[in-house]
């Protein structure tokens, strides 16, 4: 392992250099820039593979390596090295990011073919890959934060990629800003967590802070505070309730971006953070509970929103939110859940990326139309897309043996694990997980059949759907295969769980409150029921081209359960009020307050000036008066005093 560890920095280095060349190189790189981007990402992927295989070849207990690069920050008692931590967890992410990332790079070459700013797009993509790899490879919270905000920046740039020159340009820019700002709200949590950690343990690197000694030295209150702060950060990044509002708008970015950043990788960083910080969360059961609750709430929230969305990307975004809810739920369950959280993260990365890219392919074919009510009957025209998306659809539904089944089922089982002293938890969260699976089945089936099924197309005029270029469908094929097989490959025999054990620890096996076969069966039954319902409504029945008014719940779900309204009323308006108050206060109180001084001087000046009347006699009177006053005062004070 040590002979290849020197390659690790190049995981980040290649895409970073790629980004630098593409962004600074200017028009000179326009012609070949996209291929450079692909190459940089692919190079990372190759290094990732090498490291991965070497890691597999090392004994389990040696699978955590901290690779020190240089002393980053050493001042005032805080010593943080700039170093990389290579362990099964980070390498899993590396593989996901570089492999899926490279596929998406390739896809984008074709997808962005007509965009005059393709080079810039690849620059941003490379920047994202570099930042995401920094995030997962960091060996300290501080460096993690660099990647954390780096991906935020890349996300910002990519969501707002079309921020000029289109009718929707301003909205895209606003969406980008919204994403970044909401992420920043989460980041406050990370900053606060770091402050607490430094105060509590005197360090910020994983090696120290997550060690048993350090965690043991934290009081439960501190650990809870840290855990909640980390959760806030994770909520921001992973679009978990209550910071979920940005993700839907983030679909304003080009579809490969949605696939890579807002489905497969970046949004799952919150889960990574939770799993990485496992030892701290385990010391804070309350925080863990909150994590689970957040996961459960988001799971349902996203699922409900997903049922009503007609925009294919927004529906997928809601689905992403919901799936991450699953992961978050799992991450809150302790060691039993960690592995499945990451497992689901991995499989989700594949199938959701595939679904998004498929959606991109559909949009490409339909002239950038995203409204599913304007699709229908596309399976004939886009066979490869249809099949690969179908694999993704089965995967997300959790139909055995597709990959989603292996990971999601693990989470559902874990959710049914009893918790000592709190018997209600297993039932509540288990049921939520099952319910979520049913709704997922409904909305994904709806999405699938509204797009590909249906008895007649609902296209607008002049649509000539066609399969996309090989550059686009080959990645789909790869992802489709992954969606189909990855779960089985890693899931059978617990390979993946074992692989992660060095990081997340071995989970004591408890029996769920229900027998496992019962859980599996129940889940499958409700999933099939949900899918059938959707099939009946959207494949068998005619889908109207204009959305019917719908029930109260539908309308609410279409508007994301009024999340923007809530934010508007609860946060933005009061905040704006405060800002106005400050502004008016600054102008009318502070600034005016200071200007009172010169005004007062001028006023007194004008008054005293009148004494300078120009009349000699009044001047003389002033003098005489002055003499008299002084004399009287002196006489009163001194004269009387002298008489004694």
């Amino acid at each position, binding site marked *: 392992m040590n002979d290849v560890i020197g390659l690790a920095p190049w995981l980040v280095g290649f895409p970073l250099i790629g980004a630098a060349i593409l962004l600074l190189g200017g028009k000179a790189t326009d012609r070949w820039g996209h291929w450079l981007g692909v190459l940089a990402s692919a190079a990372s992927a190759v290094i990732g593979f090498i490291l991965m295989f070497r890691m597999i070849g090392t004994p389990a207990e040696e699978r955590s390596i901290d690779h020190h690069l240089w002393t*980053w920050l050493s*001042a*005032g008692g805080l010593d943080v090295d700039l170093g990389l931590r290579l362990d099964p967890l980070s390498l899993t992410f590396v593989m996901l990011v570089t492999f899926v990332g490279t596929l998406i790079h390739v896809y984008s070459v074709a997808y962005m073919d007509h965009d005059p700013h393709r080079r810039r797009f690849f620059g941003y993509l490379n920047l994202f890959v570099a930042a995401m790899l920094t995030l997962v490879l960091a060996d300290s919270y501080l460096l993690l934060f660099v990647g954390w*905000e780096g991906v935020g920046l890349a996300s910002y740039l990519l969501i707002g990629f079309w921020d000029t*020159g289109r009718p929707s340009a301003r909205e895209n820019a606003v969406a980008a800003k919204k994403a970044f700002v909401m992420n920043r709200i989460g980041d406050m949590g990370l900053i606060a967590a770091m402050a607490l950690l430094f105060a509590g343990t005197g360090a910020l690197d994983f090696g120290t802070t997550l060690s048993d000694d350090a965690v043991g030295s934290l009081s439960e209150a501190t650990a809870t505070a840290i855990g909640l702060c980390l959760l806030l950060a994770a909520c921001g990044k992973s679009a978990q309730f209550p910071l979920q509002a940005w993700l839907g708008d983030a679909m304003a970015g080009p579809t490969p971006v949605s696939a890579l950043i807002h489905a497969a990788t970046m949004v799952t960083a919150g889960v990574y953070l939770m799993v990485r910080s496992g030892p701290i969360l385990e010391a804070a059961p309350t925080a863990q509970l909150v994590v689970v609750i957040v996961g459960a709430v988001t799971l349902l929230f996203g699922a409900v929103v997903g049922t009503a969305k007609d925009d294919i990307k927004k529906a997928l975004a809601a689905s992403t939110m919901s799936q991450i809810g699953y992961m978050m739920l799992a991450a809150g369950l302790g060691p039993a859940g960690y592995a499945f959280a990451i497992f689901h993260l991995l499989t989700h990365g594949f199938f959701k990326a595939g679904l998004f890219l498929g959606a991109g392919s559909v949009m490409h074919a339909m002239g950038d139309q995203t409204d599913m009510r304007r699709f229908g009957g596309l399976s004939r025209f886009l066979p490869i897309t249809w099949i690969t998306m179908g694999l993704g659809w089965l995967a997300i539904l959790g139909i055995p043996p597709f990959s989603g089944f292996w990971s999601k089922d693990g989470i559902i089982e874990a959710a049914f694990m009893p918790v000592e002293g709190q018997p209600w938890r297993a039932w509540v969260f288990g049921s939520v997980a099952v319910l979520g699976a049913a709704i997922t089945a409904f909305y994904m089936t709806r999405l699938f059949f509204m797009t590909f099924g249906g008895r007649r197309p609902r296209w607008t005029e002049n649509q000539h759907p066609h399969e996309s270029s090989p550059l686009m469908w080959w990645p789909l094929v790869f992802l489709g295969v992954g969606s189909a097989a990855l779960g089985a490959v890693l899931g059978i025999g617990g390979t993946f769980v074992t692989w992660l054990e060095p990081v997340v620890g071995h989970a004591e096996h408890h029996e769920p409150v229900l027998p496992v076969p019962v859980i599996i069966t129940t889940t499958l039954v409700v999933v099939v029921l949900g899918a059938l319902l959707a099939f009946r409504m959207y494949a068998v029945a005619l889908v109207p081209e204009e959305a019917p008014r719908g029930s109260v719940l539908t309308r609410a779900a279409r508007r994301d359960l009024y999340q923007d309204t809530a934010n508007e009323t609860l946060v933005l308006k009061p905040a704006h009020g405060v800002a106005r108050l400050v*502004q008016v206060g600054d102008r009318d109180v502070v600034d005016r307050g200071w200007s009172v001084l010169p005004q007062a001087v001028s006023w007194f000046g004008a008054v005293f000036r009148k004494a300078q009347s120009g009349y000699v006699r009044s001047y003389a009177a002033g003098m005489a008066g002055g003499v008299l006053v002084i004399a009287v005062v002196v006489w009163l004070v001194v004269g009387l005093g002298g008489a004694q």
Partner: protein
Amino acid sequence: MFPWLTALIAWPLVGAALVGLSALGLSRTGPASAGVGLARPIALLFSLVEVGLLVGAFIAFDTGAAAEHQLAETYRWIPQIGTSYAVGVDGVGLLLVALSVVLVPLVLLAAWTEQGRDEVRLRRFVGLVLLLQAFMVAVFCARDVFLFYVLFEAMLIPAYFLIGGFGQGAGRRKAAVKFLMFSLGGGLIMLAAVVSLYFLGIAAGIDRSQVFLVDELAAVDLGTTAERLMFVGFFIAFAIKAPMVPVHSWLPDVAGNATPGTSTLLICVLDKVGTFGMLTLCLPLFPEASRWAAPLVIALAVISVLYGAIMAIMQTDLLRLVGWTSVSHFGFIILGIFTFTPLGTAGSSFMMLNHGLATGALFLVAGFLVSRHPEKSQKIADYSGLRSVTPVLAGTFLVAGLATLSLPGLATFVSEIMVLVGAFGGSPAGSAGWAVAAVPGVVLAAVYVLLTYQKIFTGAPAAGLEALPDLRLRERVVAAPLVVGLLVLGLVPGLALTYVDAPAEQSVALTSVDEPADDAAQTGSDN
């Protein structure tokens, strides 16, 4: 040993004299004199040679003893008043000297065409800039309270003329006066404290002819009441300079009316005197009073952080907005200093440097933008959709903006996190709470930077702006060092932290409760 600091101080003075005095001889109606057009190149040359001198100073500086004041020179200046020409820098001072030395050539370059072809204005402008530079360098080197005070006030004069004489806003004269009145008001309050120090120093037995040496005064116990009063005197002056809410009112006006170059020098360098003074004068001279005042100071600092950020969000004028962001950042710096942790103090010291680079970049790039507008409008609403028109300008602006919002990977992040993390463990009561209260500042920063970017650079290009030229080579040369500096210091902050770490430890040691003394007392009582 070569007197590096004196050379650094004197060299711009020579340049200022050369260029500035020749400007006085020119009147617009007068005949064209020799050397027309040479003012800018000569000034630039001087400022670049100054950079060379700075390199020499850095080489001569021993980083192993960064807490000590090195390159020191002490000569009697006015023994009757007790003041000496005493210069010397510790790591923090050296970094700030570096900031003042590095920014000047960039500002000169940025303002290359700003004053048009008016030779008189040009010469005066560059002369004043060099003069200001000499004072700024000197003030960061001063190791004598009186000398510090003299420079503290004297540098207001070139700054005043730079604001009032060369600004682009209609209110520049008012702004200049406001700036000077606030600064002088604070300065004169400080003068009262300086006068007091004179007597207290003599009373404490310091040689009358050198009573103002900081090192001597720092060793004196002034007595609680006197110390507190004097702390207040010094602190008000520094707070006005810093600028801290509620004595910040001059800053937005200046930022909105001065030229971007002036604002850069003024807000990014000159104002650092405030925080520098807090760090190197208030803490060592008045440790007890600093502890006493810390809770209030911290509260005001955090209020500044939020207040400045909120006001920045509400601005409609681009340059005023940048000014307000500085109020916010100075809040962070002060927070770090007055929570008395090595980490926070080191972070504040580092932030003084970073803020200069980041906000300087933002001011200058904003200036480039404004200079392109047909009407030189500073109204944010007058711009739109410029990313497609001037992509490089947009990118540079965004990078500068990201530095302002302390994006990790850039130097500003390192310092900000150091301040926040350090402040959380601060010793004054309530530090942790105030530190947490300051954290939303990072969200507000994101809002003001990205909102501005969104309004100016995204959407459809505004009418009349469709054909603006992108950044010219000269302008790129200005922006590049700042951006590179921010990146390099972000990735290898150790380059700068080696200079600030030891001084930070030392100043925190000064303000911590004197444990050795307590020990001595205990052993004394044991005996």
